[in-house]
């Protein structure tokens, strides 16, 4: 994967957490490969297409997701509030991807509507032809992780290509 996509996603995540939650985000050492989903219960997934192809996944332990959503919505988020939790996590990954793609210089990129998966030990499978970069993050609400799998594509390839990700739980 082109490393030039990593920094915009990190910067966008930090910007959103600071503006919406007033929370600084600490970034760990990025590694190649998929997220170890055993630590996470909630994932927000969004596809990118156009001059790039791929997806961005943000994964949280349930407690971290609930704390963030409580700050975001201004209301306590109980575990049974699945619909509200999914809606808010979807909006977070939507803002991260939107903020990141605006920093992809000279590229025209569209984002898909987000999807959210809830469940212990779920797995998110992205594109097989792009190596994922896994970025551990932490804030005062707990740890979370970003996983990106994005590649540049030739415009001639773009017509037949689409962002994709599937999930199981």
């Amino acid at each position, binding site marked *: 994967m082109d490393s030039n996509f990593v920094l915009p996603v990190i910067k966008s995540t930090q910007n959103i957490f600071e503006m919406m939650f007033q929370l600084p985000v600490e970034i760990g050492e990025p590694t190649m490969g998929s997220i170890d989903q055993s630590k996470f219960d909630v994932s927000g997934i969004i596809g990118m297409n156009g001059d790039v192809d791929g997806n961005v996944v943000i994964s949280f332990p349930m407690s971290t997701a609930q704390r963030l*959503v409580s700050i975001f*919505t*201004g209301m306590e988020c109980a575990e049974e509030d699945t*619909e509200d939790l999914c809606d*808010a996590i*979807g909006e977070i990954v939507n*803002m991260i991807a*939107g903020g990141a793609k605006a920093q992809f210089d000279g590229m*025209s990129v569209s*984002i898909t509507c987000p999807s959210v998966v809830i469940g212990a030990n779920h797995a998110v499978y992205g594109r097989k032809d792009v190596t994922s970069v896994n970025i551990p993050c932490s804030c005062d609400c707990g740890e979370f992780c970003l996983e990106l799998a994005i590649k540049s594509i030739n415009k001639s390839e773009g017509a037949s290509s689409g962002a994709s990700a599937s999930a199981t739980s």
Partner: protein
Amino acid sequence: MKILLVDDSKTMRNIQKSILTQMGHEEIEEACDGLDALSKLSSFEPELLLVDWNMPNMDGLSFVKEYRAKGGKSPVMMVTTEAEKARVIEAIKAGVNNYVVKPFTPDLLSQRIEETMSKVAA
């Protein structure tokens, strides 16, 4: 003032609604996508519309084009994650009056709403 919020995220609609309520606006209608918004236009007749871009069924840009084509004259603010200059130009060409990029602070959204309405009044 009658305000129509068009966003597929209930969370974002609630946040915007709360800011609008704090500004003193009480007549607020919500729609979850462009098609839903179109269906509410005749009964609600909004004086200001806050519209997201990326939504299922009908996106915000298509909705704005349809709204203007139907003769809708009220100011439209796009409230979206789409931050590229080319997107802003595309939106303005479609008939958007002002543009707010998510994430936003309550102060920024309030300021843009006041700015939009004062331009219309001028």
